[in-house]
């Protein structure tokens, strides 16, 4: 006999989803990649 967990209110779901989305975007923005440094010696 398992008891069903009560559904989370819509506000809590939206707030948590927004926080997750922000975290995902920050992680992507600061993901490793090619930075600015690339020494050009052509002059």
């Amino acid at each position, binding site marked *: 006999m398992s008891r069903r*967990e*009560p559904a*989370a209110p819509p506000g809590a*779901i939206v707030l948590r989803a927004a926080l997750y989305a922000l975290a995902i975007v920050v992680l992507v923005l600061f993901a490793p990649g*090619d930075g600015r440094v690339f020494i050009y010696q052509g*002059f």
Partner: protein
Amino acid sequence: MRNASAAGSPLTWTLAIAFAILLGAAITSRPVLWRPAPFERTRDMTQVVFAQTFTAAREIYGPPPDDRPVAAMLGNSRVWLAGHDPFVQHEVDRLGARVRVTNLAIFGSGAGDFEVLSRHLEHLAPKTVLVTVDGTDLLDTPGHPVSGLPARLLHIGWADGPIPPDGSMARLDRWGRTLWPLYRFHEFARAVLTDRVVPPVEPPPFPTHFADTRAVFEYMHGDRGAAAETAYEAWRHDPTFGRFIDYLKIGSSSYLELVRDRARQARPLRDGDPGVRALDVLLARLVATGRRAAIVLMPQNPLLDQDPTGEYAIPGFSDSAAAMIGRVAAAHGVPVVDARHELGSDAFIDFDHPLPELSGFQTRLAQEVVRVSS
């Protein structure tokens, strides 16, 4: 209990992904990411390639200033300087053509970079594309890689291109950039964010007019400009190869090293070389997408023919490379404009770069833009 159920709910994660996509779309939108950024004007040679790659991307993804048909120029520092947009646009306007010129050149880029950049051109939809090359742009040597930072920053596409990725992580990175514009432009977005939060001291823009060589040297070499001008004038009075090297040693010693390395490491181009494959794919794409394309073989300083020791020149390379480029272009029906011998040595800053504006090469480029566009 309720919070725990919201945390793990599939609905929460579905919404989170939707929000992240929306937030990413907002960050990479025209008004946010693709406005001119102060760092684009950097004079710092460690950052200039990144900055110019952003500028090229901004020209492609940013809002068009008007509805004129676009003529894009691909290339590197040779055409970045000699074909600076305002110089060429002025000449195109003088010829009465209704065409907007945009220069997508990036310092140090090679055929692999041009090819990767061309994958984004559908967003700009240029009517005309001038591919400006020198044979050495197809070389792939340690000192002269066929693709570099621009190709890594702008790498998109599901299938491997003419230059295979350097391992599975590079392929994964390319798929990520293809799938999600926020990841594609995350380095740019980070730089733009940094610039907006801590605005740098904005250097002046590249001049739209150079009165004389002194102005060029002052812009390029700063404090050493006057010394470079004196050495340049000494060469003008005694126009020998040795005097020209003496002049280049003043402001461009790293450039001399680059040219020496290039001469040492170069070998004749062959079918199947990465640079040749990249040019082939680039031209195929331009033709397949209905662009009017032409190749311009960029001017070379005739002084190189007088190199007494062969330290800087690559004997026979220019002609054999031009023949190879001609064969690749002919396979796609793309015309080749051979401008290699069109300028005298006094039209050059060094062995590779025509003087901005003062060389007059912008007129030649404008003629080709108009000819190919009409």
